[in-house]
């Protein structure tokens, strides 16, 4: 952000596609989602995934390895909007103050 006016592309054009990855929005977060495995359908049998579908920042990471399902958040991009907690049908996600 220290570039001078003549060191940046003309007219605000973004000339490098996909560069929003460089802009970490995690710093906006006031509350963070906390996930518990106990009732989660993804952990249980690899179904549901509503949190993954609804997350506007692709910050929910669902992985499967050798038939074992695991769950994580990418806190670099999670803005703490709480949509995942709201959408979860089994109340496996709750929000906690940062």
């Amino acid at each position, binding site marked *: 952000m220290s570039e001078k006016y*003549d060191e940046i592309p003309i007219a*605000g*054009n973004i000339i490098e596609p996909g560069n929003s990855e460089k802009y970490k929005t995690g710093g906006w977060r006031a509350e963070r989602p906390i996930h518990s495995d106990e009732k989660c359908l993804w952990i249980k049998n690899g179904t549901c995934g509503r949190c993954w579908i609804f997350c506007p920042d692709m910050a929910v990471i669902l992985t499967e390895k050798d038939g074992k399902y695991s769950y994580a958040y990418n806190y670099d991009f999670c803005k703490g909007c709480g949509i995942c907690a709201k959408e979860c049908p089994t109340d496996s996600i709750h929000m906690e103050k940062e």
Partner: protein
Amino acid sequence: MSVSKDKIKIEGLTGDAAIAHALKQADLDVLAAYPITPQTIIVEDYQRFAADGEVKARVIPVESEHSAMSACVGASAVGGRVATASASAGLALMWEILYCAASMRMPIVFTVANRALSAPINIHNDHSDGMGMRDSGFIQLYCQSSQEAYDTTIMAFKLAERHDVLLPVMVGIDGFIVSHNVERVEMLPDDVVTKFLGVREPFISLDPDKPITMGPLALTDYYFEFKEQQDEAIMGVGEAYKEVEEEFTKLTGRKYGLFETYKTDDADIIILAMSSMGGTAKVVADAMREKGDKVGVVRLKMFRPFPTKEIAKAIGKAKAVAVFEKAMSFGAAGHPLALEVRTALYEAKERPMVVNFVVGLGGRDVPPMTFVDGIEKTKEYLKKGEAPMYETLGVRK
């Protein structure tokens, strides 16, 4: 090399028709416009060229002027040569996108038949619409004749598309006075215009194979830097225009400059006006000179960017400058043109008295006698050593 006389086509054309012919020869890719008096003929004529297969451009008949300018921005973003036309209320409806066009650095040519703004609704000429968009970042060129409108429209593309400019250009003619009056117009052969303008080479454009984003968000961290770029670009336009015109003059012998001067060298009083008023002012200057009053005329063509230093130099030696203008900036310390002139003179060593007359609003005729009245008043103010901040002329009061 000058184009030989036998290749020049001469026709009687209205200002609007002259512009339509220039747009035809400019080989547009897209024209998007919505009809509004007194600009309608430009688009009507152009649509006819399109229907008759004389032009290859895609004509987009949009649902509003806001959409017209938006379509132009999109077409320009993919690298096309683009034009539109409007006036008055239509121009006002474009307002938001005018800023986008300029800030996104789209070299769109926007021909305007200058017309009063509502209310009361009025279809006749003044410069309220042009002055309303003066801070949008558009280059503004005001023309005195159909010939100048034709020439300027062609030059506008060359100017706008230069990579050291990349700004939209408004080409203005006085509604009805120039837009609908038939004058003798000399037109260049098509191939000469094609060679003069070439094909637009976009600095950067939207391309699915090489995706970029245009017009995104820029907040406190970057917005100001983009405005700095824009400012630098428009401040260089005076010099760029001179280069474009020099090349054009080689073909035609015609030259307008940023402004035209008429008998200003020894003038005591200089009339400063824009567009069609320039012609009347020159006749008045001649008549006043026969009576012994040394009157000269500066007819300003380029209002944006304002040729500050050049104007200060051109008028500096006179005793007074009488600014005649067809717009009001309600509540201002003077009206748009006079504000610029006074500011231009503030740092100058030689400062004539600036007298500001608002004339011709809503198409009220500005006959020679209005100028004579203004000059007689200016002579009185010179004697008194002071002039009012501004006054209206030609209004019943």
